[in-house]
């Protein structure tokens, strides 16, 4: 049983703006029957570039229908420029969240919107993500698309990649390739970081710099690993070389979180910020 929010249920049971539209000014179609979900988005756009009416049709599960319905409510009455800013995470947020495995439903919404806007502007949508080499044959996902999702959502595991773009959700034979893409991206990021550090003259960090670097390191090198185990970490405060953090989720009750604190959190922060840092756990 999926744990859907009340808002998802409401939009699924009472979808807004569903149906066909005569002479739409823009149409965006994504997905296919084979993939298990598809969305057709139709827009009426007035002279001031304002989306005056929206209609959609969806083939898909409960959250796919709810995501499409939510998207139409979000963009109705907005200008094209405003609508363009709607991200997949905004759709999920509007619905009070989606189950992790259903994030691709919100991605489908955003993609249909992009396709419709491109259609309106009369440009053939040639997104870099659709080019490249097909990695996941089951769902026809390219390496560029996977790399895009990995960067955009800071994905670190194959499972997360599957949740966001379906790649790897079928026969699983492409899992090594997906892992390679993930590794390459984060390895490159790390290399950049190291090069940056090597180029940096050794000088004392300002407080602002230190805080920023601590935050970045937690987001990039610490949280993904903890999230993968169902835990999380929050930065509470920084006082000189003392960094105060608090564990969340399964970490907060994990007997080995003390080890994690020293072996992972402190080690990473010393590696990427400055080797004099001391990490302490505080209760919040």
């Amino acid at each position: 049983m999926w744990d859907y929010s009340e808002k998802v249920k409401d939009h699924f049971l009472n979808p807004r703006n569903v149906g066909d539209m005569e002479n739409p000014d823009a149409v965006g179609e994504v997905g296919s029957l084979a993939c298990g979900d598809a969305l057709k988005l139709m827009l009426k756009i007035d002279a001031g570039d304002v989306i005056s009416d929206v209609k959609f049709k969806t083939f898909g599960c409960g959250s796919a229908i709810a995501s499409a319905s939510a998207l139409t409510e979000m963009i109705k009455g907005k200008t094209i420029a405003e609508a363009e800013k709607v991200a997949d995470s905004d759709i999920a947020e509007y619905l009070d969240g989606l189950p992790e495995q259903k994030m691709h439903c919100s991605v489908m919404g955003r993609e249909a919107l992009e396709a419709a806007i491109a259609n309106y502007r009369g440009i053939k949508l040639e997104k870099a993500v659709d080019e490249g080499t097909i990695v996941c044959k089951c769902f026809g996902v390219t390496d560029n698309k996977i790399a895009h999702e990995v960067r955009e959502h800071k994905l670190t595991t194959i499972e997360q990649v599957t949740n966001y773009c379906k790649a790897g959700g079928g026969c699983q034979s492409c899992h090594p390739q997906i892992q390679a893409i993930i590794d390459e991206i984060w390895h490159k990021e790390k290399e950049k970081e190291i090069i940056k550090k090597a180029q940096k003259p050794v000088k004392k960090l300002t407080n602002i710099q230190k805080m920023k670097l601590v935050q970045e390191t937690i987001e990039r090198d610490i949280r993904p690993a903890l999230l993968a185990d169902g835990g999380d970490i929050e930065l509470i405060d920084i006082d000189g070389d003392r960094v105060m953090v608090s564990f969340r989720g399964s970490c907060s009750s994990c007997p080995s979180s003390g080890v994690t604190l020293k072996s992972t959190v402190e080690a990473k922060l010393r590696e990427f910020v400055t080797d004099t840092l001391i990490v302490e756990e505080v209760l919040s």
Partner: protein
Amino acid sequence: MKVVYADNNATTKVAPEVLEEMLPFFSEYYGNPSSMHIFGGQVAKKIDKARQQVADIIGARPEEILFTSCGTESDNTAILGILRANPGKRHIVTSRVEHPAVYNLCTYLAQNGYHVTELGVDRNGMLNVDELSESVREDTAIVSIMHANNETGVIFPIEEIAGIVKQKGTFLHTDAVQAVGKIPINLAESAIDLLTLSGHKLHAPKGVGALYIRKGTSIAPFIIGGHQEKNRRGGTENVPSIIGLGKACELAKKFMAEEQTRVKQLRDRLESEIVAKAPDAIINGYKSPRLPNTTNISFEYVEGEAILLLLNEKGICASSGSACTSGSLEPSHVLRAMGVPFTAVHGSIRLSLSRYTTTDDVEYMIEHLPPVVRRLREISPYNRDSKFQGHISAGYI
């Protein structure tokens, strides 16, 4: 709210007679059957009775019945037990449509040095017996083929398969979790060596199962521990559930004829009415022999999870082979193995009845399911005339 339970291949209601039989064994006759005192010893006698009841429903002898904790444990015990008892043989034959309890175990074994041959099925879900015969080798330790499929209800010709396997001189295990209690099985006149059954599929509680081991079959224990079950499975017996399983088997034997007549008639009416009222549907496995209680219908242009959620609003409990219901993106491996097009796999629904299903229940489903499909088709961008029609196989068999 009204609840119509049509998911009996997932699990069943514990029969009231079964529950009644079990209750004294929680706080009245709670002794350990292994104890020397009569207080415990009397419980051992009741377990013997349950063993006889389980043996009776499949035409076995009581000493051929091993009690386990579930169907999955029985499957693991059978396959791993035979492999460990025959270390020189490292080949396994199975099918592509097995329950995960067998399928995933074989995948694991394939990753750990065993050779596994997976037999495919045709469009009707049927196994090719000649192909099976050809696949058995000198070093085949065990053939594990299910009796009836949990998703489609398709019944394999297990006696014919058993004959072939016996001729080839190896062991046949069959996962008969869905078959026991629904169709007659007589192991006294069969060449099946090992057979799995599960309590909660036949109105006994969850957490109990059994493995039939033909007398004279050498098998290594799966759970190593005490002397229970004649040293074949360590662990104190789950007494109340074993008593319940015995009673449930006795009842199932009594109701077997009803499964073949009344339940089958309900199922037949259900599927023919639904397909008539919601066309562009395929009954999966329709041309093969099937369990009397199961129907698996693929509705084109709509997605299974959405159907289930709307049925849920009407109090109807069903299940789906759609990817979205499983937590993975891979839709039913059974329907895929049958070559059901992706387009139809996503919109597949399984309805499975039981002896507690009433005519009213069936009429209620006939009334409410077709409008659910129509409603979703109205919001679907696909239909019979859509440009994607090319790769949809329309119509039902």
